[in-house]
């Protein structure tokens, strides 16, 4: 199975002709740049671009025979989320897409309907936070607007990464969940510019911790798991000056010397043989293909990052690191609009989503050639072979079959075995994992 499943959801066809079609698990986009020419026969570029995903949903027009209702989406994705969480997997659901393409609705709608089924069986603690410009704010706290982003992210050895001072809410019924969600969503930052009326420029994470009491071998035990619902900032390009501390997407040049450090750290990172693995940061910097496309090489030595890059993971990566890789399941829902007016955004969202499978941190093994081990094991094998062969020879030779000689044989063999046991303590060179800690 794959760590990341990617679903594409289409909705809201406002703003021009429909240029996207869905064919089973493939989304096809008509290239309007080619299409707009009257005679494009001389144009060698493809007229449509196809992307395939784990799921594609057409949720534009309920009359359409292909129409996928929210219920269907919930059935496919929600069920797998919850059954995974129920068995103790950490779950991460990421929504990515252009503002207005319905991602917040999908994201925040899906789990809520499903958690109803669980409320009797599990106890849930919920937190809801917002990350804006690499600062964290509690969305479920009646905070004063003056000091909205002062929370620090930390890690605890037993309880994992957390945001210091974030409020937690014990929820007992569905209405409370919805109320909390609505409150939180209302507080999220949107920015009005000449280009976008309400562009969500922050990431929001809604976390549900839950524990189930179970009986294991007649002993009370519990399964704990964590569901992260992540609504990523709108995929429309944000003004680079808005993310001063981050390297901006694509081939962009960062303007201010404040970002020099990030440029240098990217350099240092890239030049390393074991450049640490992918980070989900690429989520925030849409499809920076150079990073997404080049998975780290297996490498030939070294057990961990050979160098230290003093720039932290983005807060998003930091908070989600326990939900990516290992015993976790990640689903990305990318929402797009099929309208021609959204062509550019649609393409970049799809490209990004197509690369999303590479976002998982994978541990890498140290490939130190075990020369010593191999050599010594070979020696042992040779020795065993010789020993066994001589044993066979002796067995087949009648002169060795009498009792006295037999005893002598045993004595010799006994010594041989001792020598072997000692000789065979082979030196193994290490094969630890290279952990991928991403740099955002």
């Amino acid at each position: 199975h794959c760590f990341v499943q990617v679903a594409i959801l289409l909705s809201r066809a406002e703003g021009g002709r429909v240029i996207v079609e869905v064919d089973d698990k493939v989304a096809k986009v008509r290239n309007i740049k080619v299409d707009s020419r009257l005679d494009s026969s001389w144009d060698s570029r493809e007229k449509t671009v196809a992307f395939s995903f784990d799921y594609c949903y057409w949720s534009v027009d309920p009359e359409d025979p292909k129409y996928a209702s929210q219920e269907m989406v919930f059935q496919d994705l929600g069920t797998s989320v919850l059954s995974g969480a129920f068995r103790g997997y950490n779950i991460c659901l990421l929504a990515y897409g252009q503002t207005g393409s319905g991602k917040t609705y999908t994201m925040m709608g899906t789990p809520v309907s499903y958690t109803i089924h669980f409320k009797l069986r599990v106890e849930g603690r919920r937190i809801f936070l917002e990350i804006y410009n690499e600062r964290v704010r509690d969305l479920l706290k009646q905070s004063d607007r003056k000091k909205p982003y002062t929370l620090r992210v930390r890690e605890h050895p037993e309880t994992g990464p957390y945001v210091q001072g974030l409020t937690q809410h014990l929820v007992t019924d569905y209405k409370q969940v919805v109320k909390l969600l609505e409150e939180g969503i209302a507080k999220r930052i949107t920015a009005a510019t000449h280009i976008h009326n309400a562009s969500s420029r922050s990431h929001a994470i809604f976390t549900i911790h839950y524990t189930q009491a179970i009986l294991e071998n007649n002993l009370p035990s519990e399964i704990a798991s964590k569901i992260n619902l992540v609504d990523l900032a709108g995929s429309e390009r944000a003004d680079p000056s808005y993310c001063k501390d981050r390297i901006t997407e694509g081939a962009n040049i960062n303007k201010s010397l404040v970002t020099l450090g990030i440029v240098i750290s990217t350099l240092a990172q890239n030049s390393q043989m074991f450049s640490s693995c992918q980070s989900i940061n690429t989520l925030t910097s849409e499809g920076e293909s150079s990073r997404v496309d080049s998975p780290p090489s297996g490498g030939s030595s070294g057990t961990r990052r050979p160098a230290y890059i003093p720039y932290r993971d983005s807060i998003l990566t930091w908070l989600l690191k326990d939900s990516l890789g290992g015993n976790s399941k990640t689903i990305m829902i990318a929402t797009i609009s099929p309208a021609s007016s959204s062509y550019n955004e649609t393409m970049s969202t799809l490209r990004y989503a197509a690369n999303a499978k590479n976002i998982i941190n994978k541990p890498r093994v140290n490939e130190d050639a075990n020369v010593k081990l191999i050599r010594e094991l070979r020696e042992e094998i040779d020795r065993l072979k010789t020993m066994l062969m001589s044993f066979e020879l002796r067995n087949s030779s009648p002169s060795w079959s009498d009792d006295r000689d037999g005893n002598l044989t045993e004595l010799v063999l006994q010594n041989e075995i001792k020598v072997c046991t000692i000789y065979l303590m082979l030196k193994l060179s290490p094969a630890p994992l290279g952990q991928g800690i991403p740099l955002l």
Partner: protein
Amino acid sequence: MAAAGAGWPAVCEKFRAARTLSAVESLKDPETEPYRSKYSARALLQEVKQLLSAAEEGGEAVLAVRRAVLEYELGVNHTDTEELSAGEEHLQRCTQLLEPHRLSPDCVSLYIQAQNNLGILWSQRDEIETAQTYLESAEALYNQYMKEDGNPPLDPSEHFMAEEEKLTDQERSKRFEKAYTHTLYYLAQVYQHLDMIEKAAQYCHTTLKRQLEYCGYYPVEWARNAATLSQYYLSKECFMEARHCLAAASVIFSQAGQVPSAEDADETEPDQQDLPERKAEIARCWIKYCLNLLQSARKLLEDNIGELDPDRQLELKAQRKKEEDEKEKGRKKAVLFGTSDICDSVLAMEEKVSSVYPLDFQEAREVFLVGQNYVQEAKEFFQVDGYVTDHIEIVQDHSALFKVLAFFEEDYERRCKMHKRRIDMLEPIYADLNPQYYLLICRQLQCELADTYYEMMDLKVAIGNRLEKLDSHTVKKINSLAQFAIKYYELFLDSLRNPDKVFPEKLEEDVLRPAMVAKFHIARLYGKLITSDSKKQLENMQTSLEYYTFLVDYCEKYPDAVSAIETELELSKEMVNLLPASMERLRAKVSSFA
């Protein structure tokens, strides 16, 4: 024209107001209207543009330059507010107006800044080569101007200033050099995007150097960047450059909190409360320096089974003697930071640790001790509570320092003690770690602990082999170390089980090799447990056989796994063939004794 005399100060005032709005006020704009001040600034600039022809007093040439200044400001304003096409038009108009006079002191700075911004604009359109053209032409223009004229040129803002407000030569030079520093910085990014990594690093280095020369830096920020650049040099095994960056980082960092250096108003103030963290980060870069230097030296010195090769050692020592004389030359080639006063402190800092490969235990120990000091310093800030991953990585580095030092140690007993130190630091942090949140780190620690126990057992065996007779104490020790190694390999394998505690039918690609190697090592370990009890020995051989068989069966079932563990598989197959016969023989022996 009557309005001109009275109007000009008003025009200048408007222009100044627009600049303030854009640079200062816009930082305070609410998140819901991020461009409010930029839009107001734009309106003001448009007004100035309208007024310009009427308020003119210096003829066509002056008018053209002033227009160009406005086009530039408007261009930047539009790109800042995500309106790239309009921005491009304005910037193009600016450069067209200036083209004939671009080498004059009136225009050169503005022209370079316009090209910088065109570079940025094209990069936003993902047309990095176009961006490169603009920026390289800005770089060339700077060089040409400095060669042909070299006097501090006018700052663009001076075209909207009264005579008495005009800037001093010193200020002009500072601003001009800053614009050029930006050109180099943007070029660094362009080269990076074009995968010209070495060139990019060189331009970053030059940017840092110029920041220092023109006092355009915050000590903490600068130190952090220099420290990061050192890590780039580490990956290239350029230890002299890496050390120079780190020494400069440490020296400049110590300036923090003292007199703040003259700063650019448009850049934000760094956070002073993060000083301990920044300091610890630089310490971590030093740790990596020491570690990499030692590890690279080991790579040079080791023979084909990973032990120190004395011939190689002699050879390298002789070679180093020869190179010592040329060292001074190399020194000059390196890109040195700073003015003479800083230089002395940097040199003093550099003398604390070598930048040449340590070739024997004494030399290795010196580097080790420096690294170990930085480990303590880094741990002061990155404590386990709150910084779990950071703390553990530092401890892992500490362990790695011991491991590489052990390579240089000839005495097996002392070598063994070094590995014991590793165990002592790794075991407690592993015990406190919840695998639900730190699965990958847990796995790393399990593997490292298992390998370290293995190494120790190996050393004990070597020590035992030198003895006349294997005493029971040593046997016990060997067995217990082997058992610990087995325990940690098993823990690692258990971590692969799914939440239902089932070992995966098919292993994920990323854990395939580690899992197979763990199985293989366990198989070896069972084959090595020393016992005088034949029954026990048969059991161990049986267990060993089962682990070898796992490898063989798995690869039969999933042939694509073979490539990951070819040699291990080949050996396992042999063992699967040989072990039953050996066991048979042992059994025969046991029964004959019975």
